[in-house]
Protein backbone atom coordinates (compact mmCIF):
# COMPACT_ATOMS: atom_id res chain seq x y z
CA UNK A 1 0.00 0.00 0.00
CA UNK A 2 1.00 3.64 -0.43
CA UNK A 3 0.48 6.18 2.32
CA UNK A 4 0.87 9.94 2.29
CA UNK A 5 2.88 11.80 4.89
CA UNK A 6 4.36 15.21 5.53
CA UNK A 7 4.83 17.74 8.31
CA UNK A 8 2.39 20.09 9.92
CA UNK A 9 3.45 23.56 8.80
CA UNK A 10 3.26 25.55 12.06
CA UNK A 11 4.52 22.83 14.41
CA UNK A 12 6.61 20.58 12.17
CA UNK A 13 4.87 17.51 13.59
CA UNK A 14 4.89 14.37 11.46
CA UNK A 15 1.41 13.82 10.01
CA UNK A 16 -0.34 11.14 7.95
CA UNK A 17 -3.22 11.44 5.48
CA UNK A 18 -6.38 9.74 6.77
CA UNK A 19 -8.51 10.19 3.67
CA UNK A 20 -10.36 13.10 5.24
CA UNK A 21 -7.63 14.99 7.02
CA UNK A 22 -4.32 14.58 8.83
CA UNK A 23 -3.37 12.56 11.90
CA UNK A 24 -0.24 12.35 14.10
CA UNK A 25 -0.65 8.56 14.14
CA UNK A 26 0.45 6.36 11.27
CA UNK A 27 -2.21 3.85 12.30
CA UNK A 28 -4.78 6.29 10.91
CA UNK A 29 -3.14 6.46 7.49
CA UNK A 30 -5.05 5.13 4.48
CA UNK A 31 -3.95 3.61 1.21
CA UNK A 32 -3.80 6.46 -1.30
CA UNK A 33 -3.14 4.19 -4.26
CA UNK A 34 -1.92 6.41 -7.07
CA UNK A 35 -3.56 9.62 -5.85
CA UNK A 36 -1.05 10.52 -3.15
CA UNK A 37 0.91 13.11 -5.06
CA UNK A 38 -2.20 14.89 -6.25
CA UNK A 39 -3.69 14.90 -2.77
CA UNK A 40 -0.41 16.05 -1.24
CA UNK A 41 -0.07 18.93 -3.69
CA UNK A 42 -3.63 20.06 -3.08
CA UNK A 43 -3.25 19.89 0.69
CA UNK A 44 0.09 21.67 0.54
CA UNK A 45 -1.48 24.49 -1.45
CA UNK A 46 -3.97 24.89 1.39
CA UNK A 47 -1.09 24.87 3.92
CA UNK A 48 -2.54 21.86 5.71
CA UNK A 49 0.73 19.98 5.17
CA UNK A 50 4.34 20.86 4.44
CA UNK A 51 6.64 18.82 2.25
CA UNK A 52 4.20 15.94 1.49
CA UNK A 53 5.42 12.70 -0.05
CA UNK A 54 4.22 9.16 -0.61
CA UNK A 55 5.86 6.11 0.95
CA UNK A 56 5.37 2.40 0.70
CA UNK A 57 3.88 0.55 3.67
CA UNK A 58 2.59 -2.85 4.63
CA UNK A 59 -0.98 -3.29 5.79
CA UNK A 60 -0.90 -4.98 9.22
CA UNK A 61 -3.41 -5.69 11.98
CA UNK A 62 -2.08 -2.64 13.82
CA UNK A 63 -2.39 -0.43 10.76
CA UNK A 64 0.09 0.59 8.08
CA UNK A 65 3.75 -0.23 8.76
CA UNK A 66 6.13 1.93 6.71
CA UNK A 67 8.46 -0.16 4.58
CA UNK A 68 11.64 1.73 5.44
CA UNK A 69 13.10 2.05 8.92
CA UNK A 70 13.50 5.82 8.47
CA UNK A 71 9.76 6.22 8.07
CA UNK A 72 9.08 3.87 10.98
CA UNK A 73 11.33 5.98 13.23
CA UNK A 74 9.58 9.04 11.89
CA UNK A 75 6.21 7.53 12.69
CA UNK A 76 7.06 6.67 16.28
CA UNK A 77 9.75 9.06 17.49
CA UNK A 78 13.39 8.62 18.54
CA UNK A 79 14.11 5.04 19.55
CA UNK A 80 16.59 6.27 22.17
CA UNK A 81 13.99 8.40 23.97
CA UNK A 82 10.91 6.21 24.49
CA UNK A 83 9.46 8.96 26.66
CA UNK A 84 9.35 11.26 23.63
CA UNK A 85 7.70 8.81 21.26
CA UNK A 86 4.02 8.64 20.48
CA UNK A 87 3.82 5.43 22.52
CA UNK A 88 5.77 6.14 25.71
CA UNK A 89 3.98 3.38 27.62
CA UNK A 90 4.36 0.68 24.99
CA UNK A 91 7.54 -1.22 25.76
CA UNK A 92 7.33 -3.18 22.51
CA UNK A 93 6.91 -0.18 20.24
CA UNK A 94 10.59 0.43 19.61
CA UNK A 95 11.33 -3.20 18.81
CA UNK A 96 8.61 -3.03 16.19
CA UNK A 97 10.34 -0.08 14.54
CA UNK A 98 13.60 -1.94 14.19
Amino acid at each position, binding site marked *: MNILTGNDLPTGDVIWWTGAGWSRHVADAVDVGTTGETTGAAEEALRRVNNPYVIEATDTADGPRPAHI*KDRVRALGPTVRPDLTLKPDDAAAIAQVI
Partner: protein
Amino acid sequence: MYKYDQYDQSIVDARVDEFRDQARRRLAGEITEDQFKPLRLKNGLYLQLHAYMLRVAIPYGTLDSRQMRKLAYIARTYDRGYGHFTTRQNIQYNWIKLEEAPDILADLATVEMHAIQTSGESIRNVSSDQYAGASADEIADPRPWAELIRQATTFHPEFSYLPRKFKIAVIASAEDRAAMRLHDIGLRLVANDAGDLGFEVYVGGGMGRTPFIAPLIRAFLPVDHLFSYCEAVLRVWNRTARRDNIHKQRVKILVHQMGAEAFAAAVEAEWQEILPNKSDVPRAEFDRIAAYFTPPAFEAGDREPDRADPDFAVWLDQNVKPHKHPGYAIVNISLKPIGGIPGDASADQIDLMADLAERHSFDELRVTHAQNIVLPHVRKADLYTIWQALVDAGLAESNLDLISDIIACPGLDYCSLANARSIPVAQKIATRFAGRQRDLGELKLKISGCINACGHHHAGHIGILGVDKKGTENYQLLLGGSGAEDASLGKITGPGFSEDGIVDAIERVTDQYIAVRQDGERFLDTYRRVGMDGFKEAIYG
Protein backbone atom coordinates in the same frame (compact mmCIF):
# COMPACT_ATOMS: atom_id res chain seq x y z
CA MET B 1 34.83 37.10 26.41
CA TYR B 2 33.54 39.26 23.58
CA LYS B 3 30.57 41.54 24.22
CA TYR B 4 28.37 42.93 21.47
CA ASP B 5 28.68 46.60 20.66
CA GLN B 6 25.68 48.57 19.44
CA TYR B 7 26.37 47.55 15.85
CA ASP B 8 26.52 43.83 16.66
CA GLN B 9 23.27 44.03 18.60
CA SER B 10 21.48 46.03 15.95
CA ILE B 11 22.26 43.60 13.10
CA VAL B 12 21.19 40.60 15.19
CA ASP B 13 17.97 42.35 16.27
CA ALA B 14 17.28 43.34 12.68
CA ARG B 15 17.74 39.72 11.59
CA VAL B 16 15.19 38.59 14.18
CA ASP B 17 12.65 41.09 12.86
CA GLU B 18 13.35 40.03 9.31
CA PHE B 19 12.90 36.35 10.12
CA ARG B 20 9.73 37.01 12.10
CA ASP B 21 8.23 38.55 9.00
CA GLN B 22 9.48 35.73 6.78
CA ALA B 23 7.94 33.11 9.09
CA ARG B 24 4.68 35.06 9.22
CA ARG B 25 4.55 35.19 5.45
CA ARG B 26 5.20 31.46 5.20
CA LEU B 27 2.49 30.63 7.73
CA ALA B 28 0.09 32.95 5.93
CA GLY B 29 0.80 31.28 2.60
CA GLU B 30 2.38 34.36 1.06
CA ILE B 31 5.54 32.41 0.21
CA THR B 32 6.04 28.74 -0.64
CA GLU B 33 8.27 26.24 1.12
CA ASP B 34 10.69 26.42 -1.79
CA GLN B 35 10.95 30.16 -1.24
CA PHE B 36 11.07 29.90 2.53
CA LYS B 37 13.56 27.05 2.88
CA PRO B 38 16.72 29.04 2.03
CA LEU B 39 15.52 31.82 4.34
CA ARG B 40 14.98 29.55 7.32
CA LEU B 41 18.27 27.77 6.68
CA LYS B 42 20.06 31.11 6.85
CA ASN B 43 18.71 31.22 10.40
CA GLY B 44 19.69 27.69 11.35
CA LEU B 45 16.18 26.24 11.08
CA TYR B 46 16.03 22.80 9.48
CA LEU B 47 13.08 20.48 8.94
CA GLN B 48 14.27 17.20 10.40
CA LEU B 49 12.86 13.75 10.96
CA HIS B 50 10.32 14.63 13.66
CA ALA B 51 10.05 18.40 13.66
CA TYR B 52 11.93 21.60 12.93
CA MET B 53 15.45 21.64 14.34
CA LEU B 54 17.20 24.86 15.36
CA ARG B 55 20.99 25.05 15.47
CA VAL B 56 22.28 27.89 17.63
CA ALA B 57 25.79 29.28 17.10
CA ILE B 58 28.21 29.27 19.99
CA PRO B 59 31.16 31.24 18.58
CA TYR B 60 34.35 29.20 19.04
CA GLY B 61 32.47 27.29 21.73
CA THR B 62 32.70 30.10 24.29
CA LEU B 63 29.75 31.28 26.35
CA ASP B 64 28.95 32.71 29.76
CA SER B 65 26.48 31.62 32.42
CA ARG B 66 23.82 34.08 31.30
CA GLN B 67 23.92 32.61 27.80
CA MET B 68 24.04 29.05 29.10
CA ARG B 69 20.95 29.69 31.24
CA LYS B 70 19.17 31.06 28.19
CA LEU B 71 19.95 27.80 26.38
CA ALA B 72 18.35 25.95 29.29
CA TYR B 73 15.37 28.29 29.18
CA ILE B 74 14.88 27.61 25.47
CA ALA B 75 15.12 23.85 26.04
CA ARG B 76 12.50 24.10 28.77
CA THR B 77 10.18 26.61 27.15
CA TYR B 78 10.23 25.77 23.47
CA ASP B 79 11.67 22.28 23.22
CA ARG B 80 11.28 19.10 25.29
CA GLY B 81 13.61 19.92 28.13
CA TYR B 82 17.00 19.22 26.59
CA GLY B 83 19.50 20.31 23.99
CA HIS B 84 22.15 18.53 21.95
CA PHE B 85 25.70 19.91 21.89
CA THR B 86 27.18 19.31 18.46
CA THR B 87 30.50 18.36 16.92
CA ARG B 88 31.01 21.98 15.82
CA GLN B 89 30.70 23.49 19.30
CA ASN B 90 27.08 24.52 18.75
CA ILE B 91 23.80 23.42 20.32
CA GLN B 92 20.72 22.21 18.51
CA TYR B 93 17.13 21.68 19.57
CA ASN B 94 15.12 18.87 18.02
CA TRP B 95 11.49 19.77 18.66
CA ILE B 96 11.06 23.34 17.51
CA LYS B 97 7.81 24.81 16.20
CA LEU B 98 8.04 27.19 13.25
CA GLU B 99 5.46 29.45 14.84
CA GLU B 100 7.72 29.86 17.89
CA ALA B 101 11.08 30.07 16.12
CA PRO B 102 11.08 33.90 15.85
CA ASP B 103 10.49 34.17 19.59
CA ILE B 104 13.44 31.86 20.23
CA LEU B 105 15.70 33.99 18.06
CA ALA B 106 14.46 37.07 19.92
CA ASP B 107 15.27 35.42 23.24
CA LEU B 108 18.73 34.47 21.99
CA ALA B 109 19.37 38.03 20.86
CA THR B 110 18.83 39.28 24.42
CA VAL B 111 21.98 37.38 25.43
CA GLU B 112 24.03 38.18 22.32
CA MET B 113 23.36 34.90 20.56
CA HIS B 114 21.83 33.88 17.26
CA ALA B 115 21.51 31.09 14.71
CA ILE B 116 22.91 33.01 11.76
CA GLN B 117 25.15 31.07 9.37
CA THR B 118 24.66 27.78 11.17
CA SER B 119 23.33 26.26 7.96
CA GLY B 120 23.35 26.79 4.23
CA GLU B 121 26.21 27.67 1.92
CA SER B 122 27.81 30.12 4.27
CA ILE B 123 30.85 30.59 6.47
CA ARG B 124 29.84 28.63 9.54
CA ASN B 125 30.63 29.11 13.20
CA VAL B 126 34.41 29.56 13.62
CA SER B 127 35.68 26.83 15.89
CA SER B 128 38.66 26.84 18.22
CA ASP B 129 40.47 25.13 21.05
CA GLN B 130 38.22 24.56 24.05
CA TYR B 131 41.20 25.24 26.31
CA ALA B 132 41.93 28.64 24.68
CA GLY B 133 43.11 31.16 27.22
CA ALA B 134 43.69 28.45 29.81
CA SER B 135 46.18 25.98 28.38
CA ALA B 136 49.87 26.33 29.11
CA ASP B 137 50.86 25.13 25.66
CA GLU B 138 49.28 27.95 23.66
CA ILE B 139 51.35 30.73 22.17
CA ALA B 140 48.48 33.19 22.68
CA ASP B 141 44.72 33.05 23.08
CA PRO B 142 43.39 32.16 19.58
CA ARG B 143 39.88 33.44 20.26
CA PRO B 144 40.43 37.13 19.38
CA TRP B 145 41.44 35.96 15.90
CA ALA B 146 38.43 33.68 15.72
CA GLU B 147 36.22 36.59 16.74
CA LEU B 148 37.84 38.82 14.14
CA ILE B 149 37.05 36.26 11.44
CA ARG B 150 33.51 35.91 12.79
CA GLN B 151 32.89 39.62 12.57
CA ALA B 152 34.56 40.08 9.20
CA THR B 153 32.61 37.24 7.58
CA THR B 154 29.17 37.71 9.16
CA PHE B 155 26.78 38.92 6.46
CA HIS B 156 29.77 39.55 4.17
CA PRO B 157 28.02 40.13 0.82
CA GLU B 158 30.74 38.48 -1.24
CA PHE B 159 30.44 35.29 0.81
CA SER B 160 26.66 35.05 1.04
CA TYR B 161 26.21 32.61 -1.86
CA LEU B 162 29.22 30.36 -1.68
CA PRO B 163 29.48 27.09 -3.63
CA ARG B 164 29.05 25.16 -0.37
CA LYS B 165 29.41 25.56 3.38
CA PHE B 166 32.78 26.74 4.68
CA LYS B 167 34.32 25.96 8.05
CA ILE B 168 37.28 27.69 9.71
CA ALA B 169 39.19 26.65 12.84
CA VAL B 170 41.80 28.66 14.74
CA ILE B 171 44.21 27.16 17.26
CA ALA B 172 47.38 28.39 18.94
CA SER B 173 49.18 25.33 20.26
CA ALA B 174 51.13 22.37 18.93
CA GLU B 175 48.48 20.01 20.29
CA ASP B 176 45.41 20.19 18.09
CA ARG B 177 42.24 19.86 20.15
CA ALA B 178 39.98 21.32 17.45
CA ALA B 179 40.52 18.96 14.49
CA MET B 180 41.99 21.99 12.76
CA ARG B 181 43.24 20.19 9.67
CA LEU B 182 39.79 18.78 8.98
CA HIS B 183 38.42 22.25 8.26
CA ASP B 184 38.18 24.22 5.02
CA ILE B 185 40.69 26.64 6.49
CA GLY B 186 42.76 25.59 9.49
CA LEU B 187 44.85 28.26 11.18
CA ARG B 188 47.56 27.64 13.73
CA LEU B 189 49.07 30.65 15.46
CA VAL B 190 52.87 30.40 15.58
CA ALA B 191 55.87 32.66 16.18
CA ASN B 192 58.75 33.06 13.73
CA ASP B 193 62.42 33.29 14.66
CA ALA B 194 62.04 37.03 15.25
CA GLY B 195 59.21 36.41 17.70
CA ASP B 196 56.53 37.82 15.40
CA LEU B 197 53.15 36.12 15.42
CA GLY B 198 51.74 34.60 12.30
CA PHE B 199 49.59 31.74 11.08
CA GLU B 200 50.29 28.44 9.46
CA VAL B 201 47.48 28.24 6.92
CA TYR B 202 46.02 24.89 5.96
CA VAL B 203 43.29 24.74 3.30
CA GLY B 204 41.12 21.98 1.94
CA GLY B 205 40.46 19.69 4.85
CA GLY B 206 37.13 18.15 5.61
CA MET B 207 35.18 14.99 6.25
CA GLY B 208 31.96 14.06 4.48
CA ARG B 209 31.90 11.55 1.64
CA THR B 210 35.33 12.67 0.38
CA PRO B 211 37.59 13.26 3.38
CA PHE B 212 40.87 15.15 3.14
CA ILE B 213 43.44 16.40 5.59
CA ALA B 214 44.20 20.01 4.75
CA PRO B 215 47.66 20.61 3.29
CA LEU B 216 49.77 23.55 4.42
CA ILE B 217 49.57 26.29 1.81
CA ARG B 218 51.40 29.02 3.72
CA ALA B 219 53.91 28.44 6.50
CA PHE B 220 53.79 31.94 7.96
CA LEU B 221 51.11 34.55 7.39
CA PRO B 222 51.67 37.74 9.39
CA VAL B 223 48.70 38.12 11.72
CA ASP B 224 47.77 41.56 10.42
CA HIS B 225 46.92 40.00 7.06
CA LEU B 226 44.68 37.27 8.36
CA PHE B 227 41.47 38.49 6.80
CA SER B 228 42.83 39.49 3.40
CA TYR B 229 44.49 36.11 3.00
CA CYS B 230 41.33 34.24 3.99
CA GLU B 231 39.51 36.52 1.57
CA ALA B 232 41.92 35.43 -1.18
CA VAL B 233 41.31 31.75 -0.38
CA LEU B 234 37.57 32.28 -0.50
CA ARG B 235 37.77 34.26 -3.74
CA VAL B 236 39.82 31.63 -5.55
CA TRP B 237 37.37 28.96 -4.41
CA ASN B 238 34.24 31.04 -5.06
CA ARG B 239 35.45 31.85 -8.55
CA THR B 240 36.79 28.42 -9.53
CA ALA B 241 34.69 25.79 -7.75
CA ARG B 242 32.17 23.65 -9.52
CA ARG B 243 28.54 24.51 -8.96
CA ASP B 244 26.98 21.65 -10.90
CA ASN B 245 27.45 18.82 -8.40
CA ILE B 246 26.83 19.39 -4.70
CA HIS B 247 29.28 16.64 -3.80
CA LYS B 248 32.14 18.29 -5.67
CA GLN B 249 31.82 21.89 -4.56
CA ARG B 250 33.71 22.07 -1.26
CA VAL B 251 37.11 23.73 -1.33
CA LYS B 252 38.75 20.42 -0.42
CA ILE B 253 37.78 19.07 -3.84
CA LEU B 254 39.25 22.10 -5.60
CA VAL B 255 42.50 21.90 -3.64
CA HIS B 256 42.75 18.20 -4.37
CA GLN B 257 42.10 18.68 -8.08
CA MET B 258 44.43 21.66 -8.50
CA GLY B 259 47.08 20.32 -6.16
CA ALA B 260 48.10 22.18 -3.01
CA GLU B 261 50.99 23.94 -4.70
CA ALA B 262 48.94 25.30 -7.59
CA PHE B 263 46.11 26.28 -5.25
CA ALA B 264 48.56 28.08 -2.97
CA ALA B 265 50.00 29.94 -5.97
CA ALA B 266 46.53 31.00 -7.08
CA VAL B 267 45.75 32.25 -3.59
CA GLU B 268 49.06 34.08 -3.40
CA ALA B 269 48.37 35.84 -6.72
CA GLU B 270 44.86 36.76 -5.63
CA TRP B 271 46.18 38.01 -2.31
CA GLN B 272 48.63 40.32 -4.04
CA GLU B 273 45.68 41.77 -5.94
CA ILE B 274 43.70 42.26 -2.74
CA LEU B 275 46.43 43.75 -0.58
CA PRO B 276 46.27 47.27 -2.07
CA ASN B 277 42.56 47.36 -1.14
CA LYS B 278 43.57 47.34 2.53
CA SER B 279 40.71 45.04 3.46
CA ASP B 280 42.52 43.73 6.52
CA VAL B 281 40.99 44.57 9.86
CA PRO B 282 42.96 47.49 11.38
CA ARG B 283 45.19 46.62 14.32
CA ALA B 284 43.21 49.01 16.50
CA GLU B 285 40.04 47.02 15.85
CA PHE B 286 41.82 43.79 16.65
CA ASP B 287 43.09 45.36 19.88
CA ARG B 288 39.51 46.34 20.75
CA ILE B 289 38.40 42.75 20.25
CA ALA B 290 41.41 41.29 22.06
CA ALA B 291 40.69 43.46 25.12
CA TYR B 292 37.60 41.33 25.74
CA PHE B 293 39.80 38.27 26.11
CA THR B 294 42.07 39.62 28.82
CA PRO B 295 42.83 36.81 31.28
CA PRO B 296 40.72 36.88 34.44
CA ALA B 297 42.14 38.02 37.78
CA PHE B 298 43.60 34.73 38.97
CA GLU B 299 44.30 34.43 42.67
CA ALA B 300 47.71 33.50 44.03
CA GLY B 301 48.32 30.18 45.72
CA ASP B 302 48.51 26.60 44.58
CA ARG B 303 46.85 24.02 46.82
CA GLU B 304 46.47 20.53 45.39
CA PRO B 305 43.08 18.93 46.07
CA ASP B 306 42.71 16.14 48.61
CA ARG B 307 42.60 12.85 46.68
CA ALA B 308 41.23 10.77 49.57
CA ASP B 309 37.96 10.01 47.76
CA PRO B 310 38.94 7.38 45.17
CA ASP B 311 36.16 8.24 42.73
CA PHE B 312 37.14 11.90 42.89
CA ALA B 313 40.78 10.94 42.28
CA VAL B 314 39.81 9.01 39.15
CA TRP B 315 37.85 12.00 37.88
CA LEU B 316 40.78 14.30 38.62
CA ASP B 317 43.15 12.10 36.66
CA GLN B 318 40.82 11.67 33.70
CA ASN B 319 38.80 14.84 33.29
CA VAL B 320 40.89 17.62 34.82
CA LYS B 321 43.72 19.15 32.80
CA PRO B 322 46.60 21.49 33.71
CA HIS B 323 46.01 25.23 33.58
CA LYS B 324 48.54 27.86 32.62
CA HIS B 325 48.13 29.60 35.99
CA PRO B 326 49.32 27.91 39.20
CA GLY B 327 46.47 26.99 41.49
CA TYR B 328 43.97 26.56 38.65
CA ALA B 329 42.78 23.68 36.51
CA ILE B 330 40.66 23.01 33.44
CA VAL B 331 37.59 20.90 34.15
CA ASN B 332 36.03 18.74 31.45
CA ILE B 333 32.39 17.88 32.10
CA SER B 334 31.55 14.71 30.25
CA LEU B 335 28.21 14.62 28.44
CA LYS B 336 28.77 10.92 27.87
CA PRO B 337 27.25 9.07 30.80
CA ILE B 338 27.51 5.32 30.29
CA GLY B 339 24.46 4.30 28.27
CA GLY B 340 23.44 7.93 27.74
CA ILE B 341 23.07 9.99 24.58
CA PRO B 342 26.35 11.66 23.58
CA GLY B 343 26.10 15.44 23.70
CA ASP B 344 22.63 15.66 25.20
CA ALA B 345 22.06 17.71 28.34
CA SER B 346 18.81 18.43 30.13
CA ALA B 347 17.72 21.98 30.92
CA ASP B 348 18.48 21.33 34.58
CA GLN B 349 21.97 20.08 33.75
CA ILE B 350 22.59 23.11 31.54
CA ASP B 351 21.49 25.38 34.37
CA LEU B 352 23.74 23.53 36.81
CA MET B 353 26.75 23.95 34.54
CA ALA B 354 25.94 27.65 34.23
CA ASP B 355 25.83 27.93 38.03
CA LEU B 356 29.20 26.20 38.37
CA ALA B 357 30.75 28.48 35.77
CA GLU B 358 29.42 31.56 37.47
CA ARG B 359 30.65 30.49 40.88
CA HIS B 360 33.89 28.74 40.01
CA SER B 361 35.14 29.54 36.49
CA PHE B 362 35.04 33.31 36.05
CA ASP B 363 31.64 32.93 34.42
CA GLU B 364 33.00 31.06 31.40
CA LEU B 365 32.12 27.78 29.72
CA ARG B 366 33.28 26.13 26.56
CA VAL B 367 31.64 23.59 24.28
CA THR B 368 34.03 21.06 22.75
CA HIS B 369 33.83 19.48 19.32
CA ALA B 370 33.83 16.18 21.20
CA GLN B 371 30.43 17.21 22.61
CA ASN B 372 31.55 17.90 26.17
CA ILE B 373 31.57 21.06 28.27
CA VAL B 374 34.61 22.74 29.79
CA LEU B 375 34.97 25.00 32.81
CA PRO B 376 38.23 26.65 31.75
CA HIS B 377 39.40 28.45 34.89
CA VAL B 378 38.73 26.53 38.10
CA ARG B 379 40.63 26.96 41.38
CA LYS B 380 42.07 23.63 42.40
CA ALA B 381 40.62 24.29 45.83
CA ASP B 382 37.13 24.21 44.29
CA LEU B 383 37.51 20.97 42.37
CA TYR B 384 35.99 18.68 44.98
CA THR B 385 32.96 20.94 45.41
CA ILE B 386 32.44 20.99 41.66
CA TRP B 387 32.82 17.23 41.36
CA GLN B 388 30.22 16.65 44.06
CA ALA B 389 27.76 18.89 42.25
CA LEU B 390 28.45 17.09 38.98
CA VAL B 391 27.93 13.70 40.64
CA ASP B 392 24.53 14.84 41.91
CA ALA B 393 23.60 16.00 38.40
CA GLY B 394 24.77 12.86 36.59
CA LEU B 395 27.61 14.76 34.94
CA ALA B 396 30.67 13.25 36.59
CA GLU B 397 31.54 10.42 34.23
CA SER B 398 35.33 10.06 34.32
CA ASN B 399 35.85 9.12 30.71
CA LEU B 400 37.47 11.97 28.82
CA ASP B 401 39.16 10.56 25.67
CA LEU B 402 38.33 6.98 26.69
CA ILE B 403 36.33 4.59 24.55
CA SER B 404 33.00 5.64 26.09
CA ASP B 405 33.68 9.34 25.36
CA ILE B 406 32.11 8.76 21.96
CA ILE B 407 31.40 11.42 19.39
CA ALA B 408 28.11 10.50 17.76
CA CYS B 409 25.87 12.37 15.38
CA PRO B 410 22.10 12.30 16.06
CA GLY B 411 21.78 9.59 13.40
CA LEU B 412 18.53 8.09 12.21
CA ASP B 413 16.84 8.79 15.52
CA TYR B 414 16.63 12.47 14.59
CA CYS B 415 18.27 13.27 11.26
CA SER B 416 16.52 13.08 7.90
CA LEU B 417 19.83 12.52 6.10
CA ALA B 418 20.91 9.54 8.20
CA ASN B 419 20.91 5.96 7.00
CA ALA B 420 21.40 4.28 10.35
CA ARG B 421 21.08 5.04 14.04
CA SER B 422 24.27 6.21 15.78
CA ILE B 423 23.13 6.72 19.34
CA PRO B 424 22.08 3.13 20.18
CA VAL B 425 25.45 1.89 18.91
CA ALA B 426 27.25 4.43 21.10
CA GLN B 427 25.16 3.37 24.08
CA LYS B 428 25.93 -0.31 23.57
CA ILE B 429 29.66 0.28 23.14
CA ALA B 430 29.87 2.51 26.21
CA THR B 431 27.99 -0.05 28.27
CA ARG B 432 30.08 -2.98 26.99
CA PHE B 433 33.39 -1.31 27.82
CA ALA B 434 32.49 0.69 30.93
CA GLY B 435 34.36 -1.58 33.32
CA ARG B 436 37.60 -1.82 31.39
CA GLN B 437 37.90 1.44 29.48
CA ARG B 438 40.69 2.80 31.65
CA ASP B 439 42.84 -0.21 30.76
CA LEU B 440 42.36 0.62 27.08
CA GLY B 441 43.67 4.15 27.63
CA GLU B 442 43.11 6.93 25.11
CA LEU B 443 40.80 5.59 22.44
CA LYS B 444 38.70 8.02 20.45
CA LEU B 445 35.66 6.34 18.93
CA LYS B 446 33.46 8.30 16.56
CA ILE B 447 30.18 7.31 14.91
CA SER B 448 28.34 8.80 11.95
CA GLY B 449 24.92 7.68 10.80
CA CYS B 450 25.65 8.53 7.18
CA ILE B 451 28.42 9.47 4.79
CA ASN B 452 28.10 13.17 5.64
CA ALA B 453 30.29 12.34 8.65
CA CYS B 454 28.90 14.74 11.27
CA GLY B 455 30.11 12.15 13.80
CA HIS B 456 33.69 12.52 12.49
CA HIS B 457 34.07 8.77 11.86
CA HIS B 458 36.99 9.37 9.47
CA ALA B 459 38.96 10.90 12.36
CA GLY B 460 38.25 8.25 14.98
CA HIS B 461 40.96 5.95 16.24
CA ILE B 462 38.03 3.65 15.73
CA GLY B 463 35.36 4.97 13.41
CA ILE B 464 31.91 3.63 12.63
CA LEU B 465 29.86 4.59 9.61
CA GLY B 466 26.19 3.64 9.46
CA VAL B 467 24.93 2.72 6.01
CA ASP B 468 21.67 1.49 4.51
CA LYS B 469 22.03 -2.06 3.24
CA LYS B 470 18.82 -2.93 1.41
CA GLY B 471 16.69 -1.18 4.00
CA THR B 472 18.61 -2.53 6.99
CA GLU B 473 21.06 -0.68 9.18
CA ASN B 474 24.63 -1.79 8.60
CA TYR B 475 27.83 -0.47 10.11
CA GLN B 476 31.26 -0.15 8.51
CA LEU B 477 34.29 -0.22 10.77
CA LEU B 478 37.28 2.06 10.28
CA LEU B 479 40.61 2.07 12.09
CA GLY B 480 43.47 4.53 12.35
CA GLY B 481 41.92 7.97 12.06
CA SER B 482 42.90 11.01 14.09
CA GLY B 483 41.69 14.59 14.26
CA ALA B 484 44.61 15.71 16.40
CA GLU B 485 48.03 17.10 15.47
CA ASP B 486 48.88 13.67 14.06
CA ALA B 487 45.86 13.87 11.76
CA SER B 488 45.05 10.84 9.68
CA LEU B 489 42.03 9.28 7.99
CA GLY B 490 40.69 5.95 9.11
CA LYS B 491 40.60 2.99 6.74
CA ILE B 492 37.64 0.65 6.32
CA THR B 493 38.42 -2.79 7.69
CA GLY B 494 36.21 -4.77 5.31
CA PRO B 495 32.59 -5.92 5.20
CA GLY B 496 30.17 -4.20 7.56
CA PHE B 497 28.29 -5.48 10.58
CA SER B 498 24.85 -5.49 12.12
CA GLU B 499 24.11 -3.29 15.14
CA ASP B 500 25.15 -5.96 17.62
CA GLY B 501 27.85 -7.27 15.31
CA ILE B 502 29.69 -3.96 15.25
CA VAL B 503 29.92 -3.95 19.06
CA ASP B 504 31.38 -7.47 19.01
CA ALA B 505 33.81 -6.46 16.26
CA ILE B 506 35.08 -3.57 18.34
CA GLU B 507 35.64 -5.91 21.24
CA ARG B 508 37.74 -8.12 18.98
CA VAL B 509 39.71 -5.04 17.91
CA THR B 510 40.39 -3.95 21.47
CA ASP B 511 41.26 -7.50 22.54
CA GLN B 512 43.80 -7.61 19.74
CA TYR B 513 45.17 -4.23 20.80
CA ILE B 514 45.65 -5.48 24.35
CA ALA B 515 47.36 -8.60 23.05
CA VAL B 516 49.92 -6.83 20.86
CA ARG B 517 50.41 -3.39 22.41
CA GLN B 518 53.83 -2.42 23.65
CA ASP B 519 54.62 -0.35 26.71
CA GLY B 520 53.02 3.08 26.62
CA GLU B 521 51.35 2.60 23.25
CA ARG B 522 47.93 4.10 22.73
CA PHE B 523 45.55 2.17 20.49
CA LEU B 524 46.42 4.49 17.63
CA ASP B 525 50.14 3.95 18.12
CA THR B 526 49.69 0.19 18.02
CA TYR B 527 47.54 0.41 14.91
CA ARG B 528 50.15 2.54 13.18
CA ARG B 529 52.87 0.08 14.12
CA VAL B 530 51.13 -3.15 13.12
CA GLY B 531 48.82 -1.78 10.42
CA MET B 532 45.46 -3.06 9.30
CA ASP B 533 46.88 -6.54 8.77
CA GLY B 534 47.58 -6.73 12.49
CA PHE B 535 43.86 -6.41 13.21
CA LYS B 536 42.04 -7.84 10.23
CA GLU B 537 42.28 -11.50 11.13
CA ALA B 538 41.14 -10.76 14.67
CA ILE B 539 38.12 -8.93 13.30
CA TYR B 540 37.05 -11.35 10.58
CA GLY B 541 38.74 -14.60 11.60
